[in-house]
């Protein structure tokens, strides 16, 4: 029987009829508001030493020497580490498959490929002592020529990435098109910047047994990182991460500083705590690379798309490959018969870029949705109407039917709520005093990915329930929705369910990335809880001690009571007591039947091998959203304020609409920052990040964010996932920046194709 057939709720996406779909408050909320949620560095580990890292001050070259003497002589110092005295680890690939060079790996660089690279570390009794001693480490560099960014002429055109997409004959179609829009769109380096910086406590509890307290979006993947580096069994590494202070893609792998802390702890045989400083975070993890995309769109005069020709590129590191997949929205959003997409990467002296909320999708939509607005202006067609005319029946790239695509509903709901029909399309036509008012819109999308998951469900003697998984909750709501899933399947109240997450000793889970975790863990917990319910019912029917024995052919469980069809029954805890059961404990997984060996299991949960991106699925699975935005631009100063946002979203069934809505709004807020504020600025001489702090790299503040109205137009989509949800977490950032840029054009008549939009662009 499939999970879909077993599903017990069929209502609207936000039905609220039972525990599932109900807008419960966050289960971990009280702990968080009282300051009692324990984040990684807050675990109490006795005798921990403090480690402070030292980063390179040149952007390319090599380390000639490290003079450790002054630091070693500094009070409280236990160890000063660099590449020459560090314990050597076994090389292993990073998240993206890049291998370090050489037979041995040390996280401390001797060859410098980017400014801010880890070169040394100091371990001392106190943080203050380690910090002071770190300033005494004298590193002599031999500097080489730096290619700081892709703007450096010597960066060159880069290297093609084998992800060409081709159909039809775009050249011929463009040549014949009545209207062609051609433009280049650019986004700067953008950084994840969770408010909790990276860091960890590494504790070797025995020579071959390591416990790591580290914020993690992927407990099992990171445990595997450490096991592989140190050559110890996977089971001997415990990663603990019950709360994560934000990740947005940046906390899914152990990084060089993670290895440094674990090495120091191993060499000193003492626990070591390492907190990456805020400025250091800008080079400890790369964030979204700078991107640029050239688009040519051909259309008929009445707004039918004929061809899209797309050429995208992103910066990568000199010594590693990261691809920001810029053609992903371009190829599936609109019905177009002739298409070409190319992608290049341009190596420069930067830390390896990485995943940042909606990688690929987000900048891809910035280019496509800006260009669609330009086309609408050129044609004199309303931008919503232009999109309606090009709504595809099937996924144009794969030809597969959509599992669901309620974008037309989203247009209708959001434009109605926004009052779009009152828009005067002429740029600069709407004003309020000295403020120019602009109304713009754009769409976003995110694919639905799926991976297997595991869960354990326990029914305890007191009738309470526990759900166990090494999945994580970084504010995404996992603690809450998994309790709702178990409560729904078991027939108990959600408040009776406790969820334990974030520990590699618990049943395994894949990466919390690609907006996949909620759907796959809901399926795993649903399946496990149903099995537990069956066992409870069997206990009631068959156990000699059960008061319900031989009273019925089947039993029902609802509101924590187990009953016959006639209503005769007792509380679950009473049945447990009557039958002498201390516990019912079951574990289930959603692994494919063919991949259930322990090797398969390890591989599927510690690599991305198990992630299904759609190749083997007969339908095309995506979430969608339509953003409608009002901006106010000061005519004299060019300042842009977002004054109103209405977004309608199709993310399938919402397991908890309150928490999903917070994710939607969070994406919109991050999109406001992306459009107007965020920019990593690099010194062209040496590759140093000049904006490496939260004042110079500006993220949206409370004062930058207006009232936001969100409307869910989703319905349960059981072709997308077993319980009917689609992608939530990364959806709403996609399309937000172009909606703002389009609104700015409407206000000012100025088309800004390079983010962020600055006041200097507008005056």
């Amino acid at each position, binding site marked *: 029987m499939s999970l879909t057939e077993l599903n017990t709720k069929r209502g609207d996406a936000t039905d609220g009829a039972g525990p599932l779909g109900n807008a419960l*408050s*966050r289960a*971990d*909320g*009280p*702990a*968080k*508001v*009282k*300051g*009692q949620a*324990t*984040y990684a560095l*807050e675990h*109490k580990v006795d005798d921990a030493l403090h480690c402070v890292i030292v980063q390179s001050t040149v952007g390319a070259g090599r380390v000639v020497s490290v003079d450790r003497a002054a630091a070693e002589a500094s*009070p409280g110092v236990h160890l000063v580490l660099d590449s020459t005295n560090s314990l050597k680890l076994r090389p292993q690939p990073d998240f993206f498959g890049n291998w370090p060079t050489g037979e041995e790996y040390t996280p401390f660089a001797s060859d410098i490929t980017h400014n801010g690279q880890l070169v040394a570390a100091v371990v001392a009794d*106190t*943080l*203050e002592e380690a910090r*002071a001693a770190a300033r005494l480490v004298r590193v002599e560099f031999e500097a080489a020529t730096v290619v700081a960014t892709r703007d450096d002429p010597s960066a060159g055109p880069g290297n093609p990435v084998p992800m060409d997409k081709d159909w039809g004959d775009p050249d011929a179609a463009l040549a014949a098109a009545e209207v062609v829009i051609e433009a280049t769109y650019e986004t700067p380096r953008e950084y*994840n*910047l*969770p*408010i*909790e*910086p990276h860091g960890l406590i590494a504790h070797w509890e025995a020579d071959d047994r390591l416990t790591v307290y580290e914020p993690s979006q992927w407990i099992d993947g990171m445990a595997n990182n450490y096991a592989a580096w140190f050559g110890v069994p996977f089971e001997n590494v415990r990663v603990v991460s019950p*709360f*994560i*202070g*934000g990740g*947005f893609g940046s906390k899914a792998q152990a990084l060089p500083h993670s290895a440094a802390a674990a090495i120091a702890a191993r060499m000193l045989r003492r626990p070591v705590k390492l*907190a990456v400083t*805020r400025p250091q975070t800008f080079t400890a993890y790369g964030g979204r690379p700078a991107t640029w995309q050239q688009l040519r769109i051909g259309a008929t005069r009445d707004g039918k798309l004929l061809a899209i020709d797309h050429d995208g590129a992103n910066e990568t590191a000199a010594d590693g490959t990261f691809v920001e997949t810029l053609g992903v929205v371009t190829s599936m959003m609109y019905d177009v018969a002739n298409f070409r997409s190319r992608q290049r990467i341009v190596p420069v002296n930067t830390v390896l870029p990485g995943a940042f909320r909606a990688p690929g999708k987000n900048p891809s939509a910035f280019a496509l949705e800006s260009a669609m607005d330009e086309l609408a202006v050129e044609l004199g067609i309303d931008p919503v109407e232009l999109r309606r005319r090009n709504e595809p029946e099937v996924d144009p790239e794969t030809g597969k039917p959509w599992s669901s695509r309620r974008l037309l509903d989203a247009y209708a709901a959001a434009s109605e709520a926004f009052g779009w029909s009152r828009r005067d399309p002429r740029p600069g036509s709407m004003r309020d005093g000295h403020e120019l008012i602009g109304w713009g819109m754009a769409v976003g999308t995110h694919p639905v990915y799926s991976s297997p998951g595991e869960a354990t469900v326990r029914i305890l003697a007191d009738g309470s329930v526990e759900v166990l998984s090494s999945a994580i909750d*970084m*504010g*995404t*709501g996992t603690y809450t929705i998994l309790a709702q899933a178990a409560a729904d399947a078991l027939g108990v109240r959600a408040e009776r369910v406790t969820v334990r997450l974030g520990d590699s000793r618990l049943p395994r889970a894949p990466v919390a990335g690609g907006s996949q975790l909620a759907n796959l863990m809901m399926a795993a917990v649903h399946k496990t809880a149903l099995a537990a319910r069956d066992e409870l019912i069997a206990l009631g029917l068959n156990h000699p001690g059960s008061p319900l024995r031989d009273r019925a052919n089947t039993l029902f469980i609802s509101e924590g009571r187990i009953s016959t069809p006639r209503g005769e029954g007792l509380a679950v805890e009473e049945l447990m007591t009557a039958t002498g059961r201390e516990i019912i404990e079951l574990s289930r997984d959603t692994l494919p039947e063919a991949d259930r060996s322990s090797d398969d299991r390890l591989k599927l949960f510690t690599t991305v091998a198990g992630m299904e991106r759609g190749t083997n699925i007969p339908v095309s699975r995506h979430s969608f959203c339509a953003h409608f935005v009002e901006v106010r631009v000061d005519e004299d100063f060019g300042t842009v304020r977002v004054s109103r946002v209405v977004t309608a979203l199709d993310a399938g069934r919402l397991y908890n609409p*309150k*928490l999903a*809505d*917070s*994710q939607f*709004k*969070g*994406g*919109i*807020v*991050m999109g406001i920052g992306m459009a107007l504020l965020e920019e990593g600025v690099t010194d062209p001489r040496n590759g140093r990040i000049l904006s490496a*702090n*939260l*004042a110079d790299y500006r*993220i*949206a*503040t*409370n*004062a*930058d*964010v207006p*009232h*936001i109205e969100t409307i869910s137009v989703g319905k349960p989509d059981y072709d997308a996932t077993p319980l009917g949800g689609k992608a939530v977490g990364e959806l709403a950032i996609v399309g937000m920046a172009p909606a703002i840029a389009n609104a700015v054009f409407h206000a000012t008549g100025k088309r800004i194709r390079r983010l962020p939009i600055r006041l200097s662009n507008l005056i």
Partner: protein
Amino acid sequence: MATLRSMELEINGRQHALTLEPRVTLLDALREHLGLTGTKKGCDQGQCGACTVHVDGERVLACLTLAVQAEGRKVTTIEGLAQADGALHPVQAAFVEEDAFQCGYCTPGQIMSAVACIREGHAGSDEEIREYMAGNLCRCGAYPNIVSAVRKAAKEVA
């Protein structure tokens, strides 16, 4: 070598005797020496607001305050906000009800700022709340719900 210094800090109504280097910040004294980890370190340079505590009733960034500067003054942290029986402060309760956070890491600082913002009389309108809460960054983007929570709590506290 830095010399150690004895100090007495009054935190959440309790006296704490500490012997620390004078360069230890109030934030590190709380987190590393007193086990009061509810106050968060987001930037350690006065830019994010995650370490907001009250000193003599006013909001202060604990990362820009040396522990010795707090001697003889009353420090209140997030751990000191709930009532003795564990009942949530109205601002804490409103943050839960309005889902005014996701990851929760900036939350203690947001709440300490919100309590002061209301007390200062700066919660009169959504615009005012946004302005007076703008020193506390939230990367999850919970700002609209933070405004709702502060507005709601301000009515209850008044």
